[in-house]
């Protein structure tokens, strides 16, 4: 996967002109990417495509062409960074406008044209909305949005933006209105004065007025919606952060504090092991099921208990997992007993617990690599525990075998049939 991304990047560097934008996209991210590359507000680029589309659909053709020579976006490192990076300057925006104007005249001369009555008003209206909605001044889009949403708190900030924006707002509104008026004027003259023509005029008027309003208010509405979504995301992020912080505070920080007060290395290492186990469970817990009733959790708890009580490492491996029933609880308890036994007597520094859920039975192995013993000459204290493990297993129809040899460690093997199996 990573390699694939790397290939894309190399690919972009070789022949693609620019990279499409991932964060700032309406259709395929071409305008966003181009804006980023040319350092022009993507709004201007988008409007340019719309205006050029009026010239016999040239804008659409151009869009597809640019899409072909651009590269797949790389995943944005952070969403906010992508938003901040695009600033643009007034000169560049004006230059882009002039380029579009020149292209329009060229295309008109070439005959690729939907007609003066349509294209010029559209161009005028687009120019108006560009004036209103670009963020090429220092006051960025964020501040605009805040201003309109009325949540800007700093007065200086507000005054500054307001002065700039009211002028722009007026100019843009006038331009859009002029575009609409031009459209009406030219089309009215063209249409006949019959009843049908009148109805059509009314319909056209409604449509044009609506699109004028959409041009004036649309970007603002869209911006508000985007900000609302961003705010919600931010809230969720904060909530998650708080949850993580709360957990770390209750677990890791407490353990670290505890470790600083401990002078016994064995105790310290036991604390660290317990914390590690706990954190791991928390990090990799499956969210869809409550893990508290599962065999793997029960075994981990037993291991933790033995580790804390006897300062020994207990490695657990559980293959297959299932809810703990009565028979399983017996196995879990017996494992704990065997591990405790190993911790007390074997002299080894590590005990392994392995539990496997088979279709019809549960098998468990508790093993240490300690000094072992000869089962024939068992000291009384070990026999007692062995008997208790055996007895426990037998009560649930299972078996317990203890394999040991002096110098070669000890292994307790448990097997209990499953109740539902």
């Amino acid at each position, binding site marked *: 996967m*990573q390699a694939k991304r790397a290939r894309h990047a190399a690919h972009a560097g070789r022949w693609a002109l620019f990279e499409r934008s991932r964060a700032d996209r309406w259709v395929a991210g071409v305008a966003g990417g181009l804006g980023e590359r040319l350092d022009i507000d993507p709004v201007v680029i988008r409007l340019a495509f719309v205006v050029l589309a009026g010239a016999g659909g040239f804008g659409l053709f151009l869009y597809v062409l640019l899409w072909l020579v651009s590269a797949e976006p790389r995943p944005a490192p952070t969403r906010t960074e992508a938003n901040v990076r695009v600033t643009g300057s007034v000169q560049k925006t004006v230059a882009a406008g002039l380029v579009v104007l020149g292209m329009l005249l060229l295309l008109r001369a070439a005959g690729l044209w939907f007609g003066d009555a349509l294209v010029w008003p559209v161009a005028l209206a687009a120019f108006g909305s560009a004036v209103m909605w670009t963020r090429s001044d220092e006051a960025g889009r964020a501040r605009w949005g805040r201003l309109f949403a009325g949540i800007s708190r700093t007065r200086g900030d507000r005054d500054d933006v307001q002065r700039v924006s009211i002028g722009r707002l007026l100019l843009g509104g006038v331009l859009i209105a002029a575009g609409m008026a031009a459209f009406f004027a030219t089309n009215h003259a063209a249409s006949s004065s019959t009843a049908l023509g009148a109805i059509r005029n009314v319909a056209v008027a409604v449509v044009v007025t609506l699109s004028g309003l959409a041009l004036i208010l649309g970007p603002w509405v869209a911006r508000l919606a985007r900000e609302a979504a961003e705010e919600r995301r931010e809230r969720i992020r904060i909530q998650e952060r708080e949850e993580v912080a709360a957990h770390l505070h209750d677990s890791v920080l407490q353990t670290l504090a505890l470790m600083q007060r401990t002078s016994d290395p064995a105790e310290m290492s036991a604390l660290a092991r317990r914390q590690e186990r706990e954190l*791991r469970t928390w990090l*990799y817990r499956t969210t869809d099921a409550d893990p508290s009733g599962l065999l793997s959790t029960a075994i981990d708890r037993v291991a933790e208990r033995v580790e804390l009580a006897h300062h020994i*490492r207990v490695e657990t491996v559980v*293959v297959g997992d299932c809810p703990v029933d009565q028979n399983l609880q017996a196995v879990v308890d017996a494992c704990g007993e065997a591990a405790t036994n190993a911790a007390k007597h074997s002299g080894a520094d*590590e005990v*392994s617990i*392995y539990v496997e859920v088979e279709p019809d039975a549960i098998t468990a192995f508790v*093993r240490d690599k300690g000094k072992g013993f000869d089962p024939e000459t068992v000291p009384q204290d070990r026999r007692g525990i062995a008997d208790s493990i055996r007895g426990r297993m037998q009560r649930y129809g299972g078996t317990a075998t203890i394999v040991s040899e002096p110098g070669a460690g000890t292994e307790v093997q448990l097997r209990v049939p499953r109740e539902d199996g």
Partner: protein
Amino acid sequence: MAKPIRVFIVDDHRLFLSGVRAELGSTFEIVGEAYDVDEAIARVRATEPDVTLIDVHMPGGGGAAVVEAVRRTNPDLCFLALSMSDAAEDVIAVIRAGARGYVTKTIAGRDLAEAIRRVHGGDAVFSPRLAGFVLDAFAESKPQILDPELDRLTTREREVLRLIARGYAYKEVARELHLSVKTVETHVSAVLRKLQLSNRYELTRWATERRIV
């Protein structure tokens, strides 16, 4: 040993890295270190170490990305995954990318040295935990057997893995099953191969989930 094994260490936790270096420095020749994915790819390719110790969890794609990228240009280089992480999908992803083994960071120094020698010798290194993951992934009860050759473990392989999961060293496995150590190594290598090549549903799913992350 005539020439010490040349070891490269990749880990984004410098503290841990220096600990490993101190532990292994006397036994092996530490030829380099890297702290992130891109650096690791470039430097491992340039250094061509005998064995690379690779952290599973790293920003920018993790150990799997490094193993995959390096092995595309240098298929002969050996990797041993070393990690704190116990999420099965992460571990399986690194193995499937081409690492020859996986051990947890809590492993004792002498066991780590042994694992490095084993990987260098061309064998696979399965910690008890990895053996457990594999037994889980290849559980008989699960359907989706497409290629019996790759999607299923033989009885013998299963026995070997079970013993490893129970904490047996290869030598002890061999004695328990009345096999030679060489045969045990062959079985483990066969399991590694299946793990890397099988298209079993669970393995593919793990790999896919890893990608989405």
